[in-house]
């Protein structure tokens, strides 16, 4: 059960961390100054959440590694983030589509985790839920603005959805680790989260005059198993550069 729990915490933490890292890439490039502030704020929340999940994972691992060691010392095959969040930012339509698809799933998962039988998880989730409620509201509004904005923004949204939709397969399919943890009342029920996610996406896409694609199909990759797209390696090369170059340094 402990191994399952560690895997689960890494999934939550790594996903939040990589999404936060992608948001950092927007610094100085956002389409409006107000958005600079907002993107960085969402990123700040997510990196903070990642730290909480990874700290708990590090304690359970109990092998001397810290949350920082987990974030900056593991390679691609050990990362457990969702494939969706490691995809390149693209334009604002791609960025907001990724953000919204993640937020909608994240929101329901955290809601369930607030009732986790593991008190530590429930505590972290309760704090994170407040933040993610706001993230979802914001990204959902942007999906509507871009979807039902101009012809150009609508076309860009269609292209963005086309580009990242296939990675949502991970939001729908449960695996044994999560099923065991969910049965014990520790993790979120995957099917429940998948249904809530689809309902939210359908509602917002409809308001945004965007079609909801048919469910994505399973394919070879799986973030949960550490089988990532080629993008993750570059994210890590950048993010982990300092601790890897100066292994004995104190920052």
């Amino acid at each position: 059960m402990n191994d399952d729990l560690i895997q689960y915490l890494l999934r939550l933490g790594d996903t939040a961390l990589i999404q936060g890292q992608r948001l950092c890439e927007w610094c100085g490039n956002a389409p409006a100054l107000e958005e600079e502030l907002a993107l960085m704020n969402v990123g700040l929340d997510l990196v903070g959440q990642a730290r909480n999940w990874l700290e708990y994972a590090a304690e359970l691992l109990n092998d001397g590694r810290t949350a920082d060691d987990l974030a900056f010392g593991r390679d691609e095959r050990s990362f457990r983030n969702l494939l969706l969040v490691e995809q390149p930012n693209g334009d604002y339509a791609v960025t907001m589509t990724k953000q919204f698809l993640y937020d909608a799933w994240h929101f329901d998962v955290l809601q369930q985790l607030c009732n986790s039988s593991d008190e530590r998880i429930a505590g972290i989730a309760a704090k994170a839920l407040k933040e993610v409620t706001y993230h979802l509201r914001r990204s959902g509004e942007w999906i509507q603005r871009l979807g039902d904005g101009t012809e150009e923004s609508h076309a860009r949204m269609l292209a963005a959805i086309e580009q990242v939709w296939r990675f949502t397969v991970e939001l729908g399919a449960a695996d044994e680790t999560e099923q065991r943890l969910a049965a014990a009342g520790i993790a979120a029920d995957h099917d429940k989260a998948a249904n809530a996610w689809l309902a939210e996406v359908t509602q917002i896409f409809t308001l945004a005059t965007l079609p909801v694609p048919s469910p994505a199909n399973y394919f070879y990759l799986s973030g949960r198993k550490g089988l990532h797209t080629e993008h993750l390696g570059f994210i890590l090369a950048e993010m982990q550069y300092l601790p890897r170059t100066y292994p004995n340094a104190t920052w």
Partner: protein
Amino acid sequence: MYAQLVETGVKRLKSLDEMEPQERAFQERIDAEIKIEAKNWMPDAYRQTLIRQISQHAHSEIVGMLPEGNWVTRAPSLKRKLQLMAKIQDEAGHGLYLYSAMETLGADRDEEIAKMHNGKAKYSSIFNYPTLSWADMGAVGWLVDGAAIVNQVVLQRTSYGPYSRAMVRICKEESFHQRQGYQMLLTMMQEGTQAQKDMVQDSINRLWWPSLMMFGPSDEHSPNSAQSMAWKIKRQSNDELRQRFVDQTVPQLELLGCTAPDPDLKWNEERGHYDFGEIQWDEFYEVLKGNGPCNQERVSKRRNAIESGAWVREAAVAYARKQQLKRDVA
């Protein structure tokens, strides 16, 4: 100083007797330390100078995010990443407070930003230097924010109400930036490896002089100062502020165990201040003219962000109109 060499367009200072009644009343109000508010009458030169100064200050905050953006994806720990992200958010926020103050003068934010993008408006020269190591994030916080704070603390008492209030808010928030930067350097110097210590010293070597340049030209080459001081949109001279910065920074430098790249830097018992060497003013003017190491990158990055985001802003407006129409029909 975040605003350098702000043109007032005024050749000679008028005495109270030479002023028309309206201008005289305005100047007397300033002399009595009563704030000028947006709807009060003000001379056009005062308005235009303030727009230039506040927009330059705001541009500096926004361009100042870029060197930090250069490192935020490579911050070496989760804690440092969070701190830097919070700081970047503040810079964007401070830019917005300032643009907001500027807009009370009737200036348009987009137009003023476009002036920066086409080279007509300036921002602080310091951000045209590259940030080449993580230690630069510490040195920027300590030296660059430190220099900015020396200037901004004084500007809290500036004569224009909205500018003064923006400064009060900014100073309150910015005090953490300098401490954060210094603490990063201190950690590297006290607990770090030799490679890290070398990184810190190298960073100080590169950023020391550009930080001193932030206060602008020396007083004798500061033709606009007299008018700006009379209007109290500047409250102390460039050299006074620079001296204050050096005096407060040298003991901190010594505590770090680092040195400044200035053989003439030494305590002058008689003056009660530190003496320091001559600034390379040629370099300062070249950087200000656009010939610094990063001018092109900084400006083109900002221009590109706004241009390539046009479709996003247009979509938001189109959507808002459609929603308004729906509400009107209902």
